[in-house]
C-alpha cells in the first residue's frame, strides 16, 4: 500500500490532482460546489471534479463514486506506451509518478504503465546527465515531471563533481553573483 506520506511535500502536492467523480447522494445547500446557486440542491449522479485527497475519502464513505483520472485512462496509457520518451509528462501532470503511486491501488495496471514509462525515460535522463549542454535534449528536459526533473538535477550534480574536482574548481571560493 502506498499511503500518502504525511511529511512528504511531493505526496501532498500529488494528491491535489483532480479526479472525476459522480455524486452518489443529493446534497442540500451545496449548490456553490456544483456550479449552481449557493443554496440550491445538488442532485445524485451529477459530475464533480475533486482533488484526489477529498475524492478518495468521500469515495470510501460512498458519497461519491470516484472514476479513473483521464491521465491514466486506457486510451492515454496506450498512447504513452507507444513512445514513452516523447510524452509531455509535465503538461499532463507535474506529479505524474507520485499521483500514479497514489492511484495505483485503484487501477491495477498503473504500476505496469508507470514502470514502463519510468524505465524508458530514466535511460534517456541518464544519457542527458552525462553530456552537458545538449540542445536536442532540451525538449525532453522540458517534458520531465517533478520526480524526473529532480532526478536529472541530482545526476547532473553527481556527474559534474568529478570534472569539477579534476579542474580544481571544487573547493575554490568564488565571488557571489550578487556582488557586482
Amino acid at each position, binding site marked *: 500500500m*502506498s499511503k500518502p506520506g504525511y511529511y512528504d511535500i511531493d505526496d501532498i502536492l500529488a494528491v491535489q490532482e483532480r479526479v*472525476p467523480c459522480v455524486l452518489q447522494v443529493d446534497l442540500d445547500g451545496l449548490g456553490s460546489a456544483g456550479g449552481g446557486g449557493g443554496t440550491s440542491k445538488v442532485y445524485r449522479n451529477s459530475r464533480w471534479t475533486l482533488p484526489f485527497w477529498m475524492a478518495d475519502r468521500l469515495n470510501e464513505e460512498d458519497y461519491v463514486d470516484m472514476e479513473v483520472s483521464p491521465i491514466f485512462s486506457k486510451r492515454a496509457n496506450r498512447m504513452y506506451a507507444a513512445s514513452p520518451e516523447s510524452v509531455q509528462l509535465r503538461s499532463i501532470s507535474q506529479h505524474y509518478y507520485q499521483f500514479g503511486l497514489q492511484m495505483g491501488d485503484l487501477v491495477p495496471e498503473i504500476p505496469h504503465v508507470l514502470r514502463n514509462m519510468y524505465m524508458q525515460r530514466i535511460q534517456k535522463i*541518464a544519457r542527458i546527465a552525462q553530456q552537458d549542454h545538449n540542445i536536442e535534449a532540451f525538449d525532453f528536459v522540458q517534458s520531465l515531471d517533478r520526480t524526473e526533473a529532480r532526478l536529472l538535477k541530482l545526476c547532473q550534480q*553527481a556527474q559534474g563533481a568529478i570534472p569539477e574536482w*579534476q579542474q580544481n574548481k571544487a573547493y575554490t571560493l568564488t565571488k557571489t553573483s550578487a556582488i557586482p
Partner: protein
Amino acid sequence: MAITTRQQEGFTMPELEYMAQCEDITIVPLHRMERLELMRALMLKRSNRCRIVAPEWLSYEHLHNLCKREDQPDSMFTKLPFHYLEIAQILLTNAEDDLIDSQGVRRLIQDLREVRQSKTREGLRMLNPLQLQMDNLSIAEINEIRPLFAHSFDMLRRLDELAGSSDVSRQQSQNMFADQSYSEFDDTFSSSYLNPE
C-alpha cells in the same frame, strides 16, 4: 590577546622549547621507508625528500592494455584500484616528474574513464529492483551514479510493491463481492475508462 609582562620582557619557556626543535640532530632510522601512506609520501615529495615510485597500474603499458580490454564488447569492468581516479589525479598533479610518459598516462586515464562511463550507462538497461552487479567499479564511479541508481531503485521498488498489493486487494475484493463476477468488476473499471470526463 593580552600579552603578559613576562612575554614583553622576553621568551616564555614553551616558546624556547619550540624554537629548540628546529636544531639539527643525528638519528638512527628504525624503518626503511619504502611504503607509506600517500599523504606522507606527498609531504616528503613536496619538500624534495623522496621520489615516488609510480604504482604498477599507473604505467602507459598497463593502462593501454586495460583500455583495450575494457573496449571489448560485453566485457566486464577491468580491475583497477578502488581509488584509481583519485590516486592518478594526485600523482599527475604532484609527482608528474616521477611518472614515465605522464601525458600519455593522463590521456589513457581519461579514455578509460569514458569507456567505463558508457559501460555503466549500458548497465542501466538491466535495471531491476532486486539487484545490480557491477564488479570492479571504483568509489568515484559509484559515487557518480549513486543518485541515479538509488532513486530509480526506490521508484521500482515502490511500483513493485504497489503491483503486489493491488493484486492482493483485487483478490480480496473478489472475495468480498462473491456474487459479482470478476468480469463484471472489470466492466466497472473499463466503463469509467471509456468516459473519462
